[in-house]
């Protein structure tokens, strides 16, 4: 018992150590407190139960029960008995928590704040892993397998974090695993009696043995190598552009605000792809504006570029919007129209700590002091409140530029702060080659940007798809430039990247495309309208939006300075619209003609599955019925199997020529078969009938003695089950047939085997209780036993193969082999 106690404690400690890598997912440590409480409770219960002498499975069951109780206590719905005993409401609450966790996972970036759903998920996971580790270590005595659940935990941060995962939690988890292995081995050795330590003195039971020093050294070296090797191997950034996700700590409005309200770190790329792929369409924002042709509603910016792509920087600085917004310096210039408009926004289903606004806001109403304006990013944000349910109005200036005007913008001085900040981009020779190709012979920044903008046109092979393709180039941006398939995420980021590579400041903006749902002056924006585009900085003009994503695919807006490249080519190459004003009636203009992404999806050929209104969720009774049907099906599998086997064994079904030449051997009372092929048939039939009889006996829980001959077995069946005369004759016939088939030169030929079999089976079934009869039908012991045997044999074979393999490996790699004198 003592060593079990010790092992239980070590398993619990190892579980906690193994859970440490989760620290990379959460921003606070609340999850660890929860996990420790759960693990301690579960391990305590295990200790308590193990101190009693009970069957091996009982502690595990008790642990599971205790886990359920502690989970109920920690995540109460308020409906529990005594706060501990779960009720159906509790499980509904758990379900809600899990659903919440799923939603949070879809649109939050790591590290996440303490959301109850996520905490529940992590606690649930850690608890299950703790129980599994305990089960594997103490009950099954295979602590090596406990590494698998540990690895499962470790895979969570590895999977969700874009950047590298901290080394320390990994090392802690590995140490916990090794500790578990070492403890188990010491325990195994101790069972043989005194431990030999090589020091010639008695050592304490759990004192590390000097003999094991080599093993400990190997373990340490192993962990060190595991930690060090990834540092040396150059990392690959494959697949990162596909998400363009921000790395750690890069979300908007990071962490908890000073007010203490739980902030929410939103990964805007995650929100974008999550919502665009959402099968459900719902309204997020309603905006009413007197602008007849509004551009995109905008709420965020990503301007920091890493090899992993663009990532959002948390907005900072600025002043409260209630104290007025800085009026942008307006320089009257030729070809630039500044018009003032006013807009009211009602946020229905968008929970962020930034507010969607139009550029360039000049005055905001009905917003409290907590909302600040970040001048650099032109984002209204808050550290305390969120956008959910907000209603506000603001005035803004909608600029319109003509290409001629923009063409007058000169490149910024290299010492300019904006130029320095917004043109940094990871060096990539291939990208640079593409950029220099595109921008060859282009003099002004605007022409370069237009060339890059045109590069993404569908005539160049790019096409819009929510399904991205992963490539093989090892660089995500190159993958997109090669595969030419993606959606706004890829378009906006790739364009910003190329523009930056061309030496022009650029960034990625997030918001809503204009969509097509217009009712007078009111535009309703759904999750399908979420969008990302590129903003380019021009001297004297400020940030000018360019949307490289095909306008027709996203309900986008075509602007005078960035017309649809395909149409522009069709009209007249090289010329720009004369008046510099947006062309009315263009595809992006007409609200009714501008297809929304849902329709784009349909056009893409995905047959409307995602674009169509989401089907009604299947009601739970249907699921329950389906589950019950599946369970019932599973239940009848053994019975079906048994029936099939019986049919196949039915003597008259066994193929073969009927015995033709039948002679009566003089002096023998039986009719025996003499024809050679008929002999085989008769023999096989007798075997089949006998097998069926034996299986029937096994199914009906009648004793079958492997040391008894067919004759004895039949006699015992007759006396044991008190068979009537008729059945007894049948049983004897079956026994005799099998006996002759096995041991005589000539098998017995009898056409009555099938009939006898039926008689005997009915007689047996008649003799046993109803319960046994039902079990014989639905859980036939013969079939189950054979399956069990097959599984055992298969696992034994696998174990043997692995053992052989291991042995040969050890032999090959053994250093001992090289030592002289160590050979055997």
């Amino acid at each position, binding site marked *: 018992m003592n060593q079990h106690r010790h092992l239980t404690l070590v398993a619990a400690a190892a579980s906690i150590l193994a859970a440490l890598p989760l620290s990379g997912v959460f921003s606070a440590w609340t999850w660890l407190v929860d996990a420790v409480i759960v693990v301690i409770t579960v391990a305590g219960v295990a200790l308590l139960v193990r101190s009693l002498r009970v069957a091996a499975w009982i502690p595990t069951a008790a642990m599971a029960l205790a886990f359920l109780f502690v989970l109920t206590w920690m995540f109460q719905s308020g409906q529990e008995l005594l706060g501990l005993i779960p009720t159906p409401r509790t499980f509904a609450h758990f379900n809600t928590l899990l659903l919440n966790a799923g939603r949070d996972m879809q649109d939050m970036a790591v590290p996440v704040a303490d959301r109850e759903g996520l905490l529940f998920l992590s606690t649930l996971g850690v608890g299950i892993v703790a129980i599994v580790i305990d089960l594997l270590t103490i009950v099954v005595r295979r602590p090596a397998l406990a590494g698998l659940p540990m690895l499962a935990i470790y895979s969570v941060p590895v999977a969700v974090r874009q950047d590298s995962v901290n080394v320390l939690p990994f090392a802690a988890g590995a140490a916990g695993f090794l500790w578990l292995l070492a403890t188990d081995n010491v325990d195994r050795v101790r069972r043989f009696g005194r431990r030999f330590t090589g020091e010639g003195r008695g050592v304490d039971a759990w004192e590390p043995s000097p003999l094991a020093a080599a093993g400990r050294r190997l373990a340490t070296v192993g962990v060190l190598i595991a930690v060090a090797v990834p540092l040396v191997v150059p990392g690959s950034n494959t697949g990162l552009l596909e998400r363009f996700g921000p790395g750690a700590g890069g979300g908007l409005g990071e962490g908890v605000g000073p007010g203490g309200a739980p902030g929410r770190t939103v990964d805007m790329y995650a929100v974008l792809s999550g919502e665009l792929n959402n099968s459900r369409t719902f309204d997020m924002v309603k905006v009413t504006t007197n602008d007849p042709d509004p551009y995109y509603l905008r709420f965020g910016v990503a301007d920091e570029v890493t090899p992993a792509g663009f990532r959002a920087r948390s907005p900072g600085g600025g002043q409260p919007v209630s104290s007025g917004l800085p009026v942008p310096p307006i320089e009257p210039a030729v070809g630039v129209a500044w018009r003032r408009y006013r807009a009211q926004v009602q946020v229905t289903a968008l929970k962020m700590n930034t507010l969607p606004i139009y550029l360039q806001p000049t005055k905001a109403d009905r917003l409290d002091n907590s909302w600040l304006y970040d001048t650099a990013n032109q984002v209204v944000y808050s550290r305390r409140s969120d956008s959910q349910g907000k209603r506000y109005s603001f005035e803004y200036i909608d600029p319109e530029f003509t290409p001629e005007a923009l063409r007058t913008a000169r490149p910024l001085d290299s010492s300019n702060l904006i130029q320095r900040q917004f043109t940094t981009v990871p060096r990539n020779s291939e990208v640079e080659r593409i950029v220099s190709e595109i921008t060859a012979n282009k003099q002004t920044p605007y022409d370069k940007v237009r060339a890059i903008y045109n590069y993404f046109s569908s005539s160049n092979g790019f096409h819009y798809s929510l399904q991205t393709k992963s490539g093989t180039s090892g660089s995500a941006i190159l993958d997109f430039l090669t595969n030419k398939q993606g959606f706004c995420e890829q378009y906006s980021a790739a364009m910003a990247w190329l523009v930056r590579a061309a030496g022009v400041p650029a960034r990625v903006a997030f918001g809503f495309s204009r969509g097509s749902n217009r009712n007078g002056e009111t535009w309703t924006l759904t999750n399908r309208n979420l969008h990302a585009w590129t903003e380019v900085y021009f001297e004297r003009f400020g940030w000018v939006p360019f949307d490289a994503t095909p306008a027709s695919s996203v309900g986008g807006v075509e602007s005078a300075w960035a017309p649809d490249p395909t149409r522009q080519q069709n009209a007249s190459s090289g010329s720009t619209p004369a008046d510099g004003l947006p062309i009315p009636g263009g595809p992006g203009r007409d609200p009714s003609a501008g297809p929304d992404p849902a329709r784009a999806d349909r056009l893409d050929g995905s047959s409307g599955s995602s674009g169509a209104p989401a089907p009604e969720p299947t009601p739970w009774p249907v699921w329950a019925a389906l589950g019950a049907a599946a369970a019932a099906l599973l239940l009848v599998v053994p019975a079906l199997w048994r029936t099939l086997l019986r049919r196949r064994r039915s003597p008259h079904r066994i193929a073969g020529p009927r015995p033709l030449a039948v002679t009566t051997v*003089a002096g*023998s009372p039986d009719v025996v078969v003499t024809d050679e092929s008929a002999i085989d048939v008769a023999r*096989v039939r007798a*075997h089949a009938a006998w097998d069926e009889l034996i299986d029937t006996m096994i199914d009906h829980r009648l004793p079958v003695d*492997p040391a008894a001959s067919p004759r004895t077995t039949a006699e015992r069946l007759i006396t044991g089950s008190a068979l009537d005369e008729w059945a007894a004759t049948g049983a004897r016939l079956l026994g005799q047939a099998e006996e*002759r088939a096995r041991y*005589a*030169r000539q098998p017995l030929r009898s056409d009555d085997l099938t009939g006898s079999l039926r008689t005997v089976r009915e007689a047996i079934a008649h003799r046993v209780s109803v319960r046994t009869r039902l079990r014989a039908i639905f859980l036939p012991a013969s079939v189950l036993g054979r399956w069990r045997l097959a599984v055992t044999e298969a696992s034994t074979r696998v174990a043997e193969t692995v053992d052989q393999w291991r042995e040969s490996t050890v032999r090959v790699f053994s250093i001992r082999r090289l030592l002289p004198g160590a050979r055997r």
Partner: protein
Amino acid sequence: MTTQRTQDELGRPLPPLEFRAVTEAIVANVERVIEGKSAAVRLALAAMLAEGHLLIEDVPGVGKTKLAKALARSIDCTVRRIQFTPDLLPSDVTGVSVYNQESRDFEFKPGAVFANIVVGDEINRASPKTQSALLECMEERQVTVDGVTYPLQTPFMVIATQNPIEMEGTYPLPEAQRDRFTVRIAMGYPDVKSELAMLDGHGGDDRVLDLLPVSDAATVRRLIATVRGVHASDAVRQYAVSLVTTTRESPDLRLGASPRATLQLLRTARAVAALEGRDYVLPDDLQSLAVPVLAHRIIPTAEAQLSRRTTDAIVADIVRHLPIPSERQRSPYDTRGQYDPGRR
């Protein structure tokens, strides 16, 4: 038994009906004097048909000698009786060369073993020296005296009786000789009815003397030939070997059964099968014969003796627990896969 005669010398096998008639006649004849001991009588006959020797071991007065005599008298052949006494000499058994004055040469005077059936009464009252004289003739069916080998007739059978070793004035039989006895049977006390019947019949004369032979040596040879032709399938042979092997591996036994035991076990099983009218051996035959054929050859360990486990009980235990080989005769249906899996 390496010098046993060939099939031709034995004669043709008897047809089943005739075989049955002859054996039933012998059994019925013996049962006229031994009431209620049908199993023992059949076993004794089986030992004879299996070309073996019979050892009847029991307490005095249960009819051992009577069984031996009745069996011998039922067959019209030469029968000799040796009363084993402590002063019996080997030459009394085997024969001796005496100097013939007339021919001026040594002349062999055959001993008691030169007969078809030798009844050795109270065999364990002679010294082991004398008993050893039987070793050669029982196994090799020949006698070697003064360097000359004399073959014995067929059938040749030694029927010996003995008292249990606990009785006074007995010597234990050497292991080698015990191993030469194919079957050891115990008579056991008769049941009340048989004993009453015995009282009625035994009022006056010895009825054994009234027994008339119902068969002769030639017929017995043909019976033996018939028994030799009984089929023993591979599974049965396998089972016989397993049974004997298990006695060698049993933790209760110091000495297991010999390969000769395997041979004799299967032979006797053939005889029993034939007596039951079958032309094939069943595992049941082996099971029923395991104790009579194996138990007297094996030596239990000191622990088993201390815990008063008899060799009979040990052998019976082995029989009860040893699975029967379920190996079946090969059939083309197996290889073609028309009938396969549910096989046990």
